[in-house]
């Protein structure tokens, strides 16, 4: 298996606040292609901070993050945006679909940014919506979809750009248990059938139970790293 994320001894201190906040205090982490990894830990332990830094949305105070062989702390703002577009899929807790676009268009527009051809886009949108089970909702706008359906569209969107891995910060936090189970089914299927790597944070024990590797953060440090299944 090849190493896709290599986090080396990163620290993150927020200094804009009155009292500096040490959100991460020396985190080392390697993630290989094909992993299905959950990051867990109490509120304020630094899960979001870690995911943001891995995703190139935020920069560490010290340490380095190497993604697919590129040290992303060396990239400038525009290169970083470009890098995210090509390498990383994002799923957000609040779905963040564009309200004026249909499910199909929400999945499609990333490929538009990448400059893919119409036929390629159409084929990929169909394939992905099929995989997340929303072919019949293709022309619905986000407001016409349930939270679970919206998050499935968001997963399809994250995969549309053919990233090397997907980062999801509490993707199920807003979902009921049925939708949560359904989303997890889809993510696992994509992981097994397409070999897509997922890294996500969660509080939900049922989600943790289905992860293949569970990293526990406490107070900005990794306190345990358990690989549950082979």
């Amino acid at each position, binding site marked *: 298996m090849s190493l896709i994320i290599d986090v080396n001894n990163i620290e993150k201190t927020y200094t804009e606040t009155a009292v500096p906040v040490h959100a991460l205090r020396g985190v080392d982490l390697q993630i290989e292609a094909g992993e299905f990894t959950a990051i867990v830990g109490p509120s304020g332990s630094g899960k979001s901070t870690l995911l943001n830094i891995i995703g190139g*949305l935020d920069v560490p105070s010290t340490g380095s993050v190497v993604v697919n062989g590129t040290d992303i702390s060396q990239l400038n*703002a525009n290169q970083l945006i470009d890098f995210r577009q090509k390498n990383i899929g994002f799923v957000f807790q609040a779905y*963040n679909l564009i309200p004026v676009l249909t499910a199909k268009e929400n999945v499609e527009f990333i490929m538009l940014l990448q400059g893919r051809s119409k036929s390629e886009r159409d084929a990929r949108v169909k394939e992905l919506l099929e995989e997340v089970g929303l072919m019949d909702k293709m022309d619905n706008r986000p407001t016409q979809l349930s939270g679970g359906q919206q998050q499935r569209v968001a997963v399809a969107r994250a995969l549309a750009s053919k990233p090397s891995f997907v980062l999801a910060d509490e993707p199920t936090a807003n979902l009921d248990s049925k939708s949560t189970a359904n989303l997890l089914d889809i993510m696992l299927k994509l992981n097994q059938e397409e070999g897509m790597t997922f890294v996500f944070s969660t509080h939900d024990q049922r989600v943790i139970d289905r992860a293949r590797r569970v990293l526990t953060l406490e107070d900005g440090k990794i306190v345990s790293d358990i690989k549950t299944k082979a």
Partner: protein
Amino acid sequence: MGAVILGLWSILFATSFSAGMISAMIEKGIRHQHSHLQIHHNNYQKNKEAKHFIEDAESILQKSASDENIQASAARVTTQAMMNTTKGVRGIQVIGVQAEREAQLTDIDQFIITGKYFDGKQRKPILVSKGIAEKMKLKESTKLVLTFQNTLGDISTLSFRVAGIFDTGNAMLDDTRVYVPFKSLQTALGLAEGQAHELAFFLKDASELERSQAALAAIAPRLHVQSWEDLAPEFRVFEEQFRISIYVILFIIMLALIFGIINTMLMAVLERIRELGMLMAVGMNKRKVFNMILTETVLLTLIGAPIGILLAWISITFFSENGINLGAYAEGLSSMGVGHIIRPVFEPEVFFITSIMIIITAILAAVYPAYKAVKLKPVEALRRA
């Protein structure tokens, strides 16, 4: 978008309205006061003395008739005089007019409010203005005496009876003059048959003014032929002021528009802050975000602009046919020499410039919100609820 519509409409309408007012004033001034062209003795404008008269005035008038473009013309004799009534004395300009021709030329007969215009039957008739009649307690057939110097430098005295009282609406001018029949003043001034101080010409087609002016200059080579623009430099000043005030209004509206657009677009940016955060997180670069906001604003303006222009065009066309009745302000207006019905004038040039300016303004105003959007940090934008 509303701001764009309103801004464009108001600026275009205001311009056309003021242009209408100015052109009404100029038109009135030409029609009833200055005519298009006037001829004087070379020294007359410098020194309005009776001795600076035109030797062959009548023959010039006859010759000028060959110009098809001259619709009406008349000769005048004029002098400064002291006017004596039972109520007192005042200085006044006395104008001797050719009854028929003057009526054709300036419509002075239309403005008689009491009594009658010259009909050839009255004895020693004089026309005085409403203002003077009030101040000097003059009524129809009141007697008055004018004292003035004739061309030889001798003092002459002539007595008159008020035949009519006139009111052209331009009180400032009216109250400086009285009208008497041409012949009586010509004789009293010691001028011979065919001599006069002033010749005035009203043209059929004002755009041919220069040609007609040249034709007159050819007929009257040693005389001073002037157009209304030379005779009434104040019109130029008005036009100048009009232009300045248009720019001031334009500036204010542009400013209001800029803030309106900035406000609208900032709101639009704030409303979609999470959407923008997401777009930047998944890899929409800053240039694209910037262009997106800019494009939205331009589209908004491009939708608003034609509506504003169309509305302005409709209301201007409507009012230029029907006129805007400013009856309530008629008094103030008439002292400015303007009637109380204003017809806005459609000025294509102003329309064009304003429209372009507003669209440019809108685009400039879009830059700030777009810049704000670009400055957003995706993590922070995403965290906002």
